[in-house]
């Protein structure tokens, strides 16, 4: 089945230690998104890629970076995680930029110790 896959499902990192979260998709969608979701809150868009075009949200901290080496894969890099970065990170895809439907992965739960 076509899907969005995120690895790992659970990630523990130390304060200040760089961490990378991975997302892959078999839907061949042009757009990939990264969301941050804290407990009992709505998902918050960090950035998205339209093909190779990177689009950062204005309020996304510089500590968060992303890479998309090809259509299928997208990575979220947190350069120096703080305690406030502990959250669920959701990857999503959509066929086009009108974002009519987004397909979500299962998420990566990040813990910062």
């Amino acid at each position, binding site marked *: 089945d076509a899907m*969005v896959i*995120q690895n790992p499902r659970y990630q523990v990192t130390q304060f200040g230690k760089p961490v990378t979260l991975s997302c892959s998709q078999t839907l061949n969608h042009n757009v990939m998104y990264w969301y941050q979701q804290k407990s*009992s*809150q*709505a*998902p918050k*868009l960090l950035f998205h890629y*339209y093909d190779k075009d990177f689009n950062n*949200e204005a309020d996304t901290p510089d500590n968060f970076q992303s890479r998309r080496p090809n259509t299928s894969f997208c990575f979220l890099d947190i350069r120096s995680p703080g305690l406030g970065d502990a959250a669920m990170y*959701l990857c*999503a895809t959509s066929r086009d*930029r*009108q*974002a*009519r*439907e*987004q*397909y*979500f*992965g*299962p*998420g990566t*739960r990040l813990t910062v110790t």
Partner: protein
Amino acid sequence: AQSVTQPDIHITVSEGASLELRCNYSYGATPYLFWYVQSPGQGLQLLLKYFSGDTLVQGIKGFEAEFKRSQSSFNLRKPSVHWSDAAEYFCAVVPSGGYQKVTFGIGTKLQVIP
């Protein structure tokens, strides 16, 4: 500014009872409307969507939603709730035309009691 309101943060219903989750939006024109469900520790799954046409839309898992333009609402309903429906439900809105960011409501957490 565009906004999505889910006025009920938490709802408890008995298994077998009917359910209605409320969603109101504030936009200049009719946007695209969605309901997503999130089980604990999981990603979001699309339940149903409205783009245009028939204002009553059917979704997966026995859910339906009705778009009411006059009330700027898109409420989610299910006639008989099952224990497995316990989850968090997010209403989401995307303005039509061009690239537009999805705006999610704050979510409604549904508890189902036997």
